[in-house]
């Protein structure tokens, strides 16, 4: 081959390599197109869908009843109930769950709904915080989130949240754990395929807290994220860790516009 012919071929080769790299880069960071997003509800059996749809057979509603009672119950040294400040939750809490996590100016970081409830308890009710995954915190969160059922997820347009959301996105796309997996590899690149007997969901946080049949109880998004981390054999963070809130921020942004289903039922 003459030197001239070789020089002639090189740009073409470079273009092919560049094309391959671009293609890989796209598939690796491939966010799901907005119109292809779907709730894991769509993958459930007819029976499980019926369970979620009917409020008298959805076990999550048992927690909602508890939450409603807690909403009106006086608590703490201040002897004040949530309802004493916020009034009827049906009006005052409508759409709240759809826009959380939100930035808390005093703390200088985002807080999720559970943390907001506990901040309210500490500051306004002078009550002790409810432990993560306790019946009461799940009940209050479910009751508040139910008031947003059917509303589109609407992450706030707040510049202060951007660095935290970006941190969440980085965590989401970073390989971690002994299996060296990232969230993205399952939930963006391989959703809809089978992982053992289950369909890989897209991982949208639209129905939390959820009643998971496997848990036989209601559980938070943090509990679900810990599930995934254990599955990846990665380090789990303690409940309430900033990493979960960052991740929740990114996941809510990723699910923007999708409808809140709380309390959702999942197998």
């Amino acid at each position: 081959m003459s030197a001239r012919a070789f020089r002639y071929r090189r740009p073409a080769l470079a273009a092919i390599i560049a094309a391959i790299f671009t293609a890989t880069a796209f598939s690796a960071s491939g966010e799901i197109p907005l119109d292809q997003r779907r709730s894991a509800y769509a993958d459930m059996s007819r029976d499980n869908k019926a369970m979620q749809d009917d409020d008298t057979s959805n076990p999550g509603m048992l927690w909602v009843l508890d939450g409603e009672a807690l909403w009106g119950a006086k608590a703490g040294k201040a002897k004040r109930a949530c309802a004493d400040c916020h009034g009827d939750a049906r009006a005052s809490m409508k759409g709240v769950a759809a826009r959380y996590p939100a930035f808390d100016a005093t703390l200088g970081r985002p807080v999720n709904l559970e943390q907001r409830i506990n901040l309210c308890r500490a500051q306004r009710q002078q009550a002790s915080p409810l432990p993560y995954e306790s019946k009461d915190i799940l009940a209050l969160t479910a009751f508040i989130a139910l008031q947003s059922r059917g509303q589109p997820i609407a992450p706030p347009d707040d510049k202060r949240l951007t660095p935290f959301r970006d941190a969440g996105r980085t965590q989401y796309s970073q390989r971690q754990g002994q299996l060296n997996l990232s969230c993205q590899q399952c939930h963006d690149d391989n959703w809809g395929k089978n992982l053992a007997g289950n369909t890989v969901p897209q991982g949208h946080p639209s129905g939390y807290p959820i009643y998971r049949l496997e848990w036989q109880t209601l559980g938070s998004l943090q509990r679900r994220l810990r599930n995934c981390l254990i599955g990846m054999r990665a380090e789990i963070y303690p409940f309430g860790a900033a990493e979960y809130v960052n991740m929740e921020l990114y996941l809510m942004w990723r699910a923007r516009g999708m409808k809140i289903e709380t309390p959702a039922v999942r197998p």
Partner: protein
Amino acid sequence: MARTLVNVPKKAKRGEVITIKTLISHIMETGFRHNSLGARIPRDIIDSFVCTYNGEEVFRAALHPAIAANPFITFHTVATESGTIAFKWTGDNGFSAAASAKITVE
């Protein structure tokens, strides 16, 4: 306090077969599990469910340790007359819960 959710149609025609759905919050601890220290967690389940229609028993179920938490029981009966359909759950450690619903039969 155990929370209950019951679904009974408000109205029915005489002789119509109606579906009744009931749900109750209960941990249904089997008695076969052990805690982190190896001690057995004592059994704590609902073992009986009874439904009465204007005082007459129309459905009864015996529950056992293999039943999942928050038992959901659904069954059918014939709408005979207007009145009250009452439900009673009883179980370990003196557990007892009740609920009722009104039905109008035309």
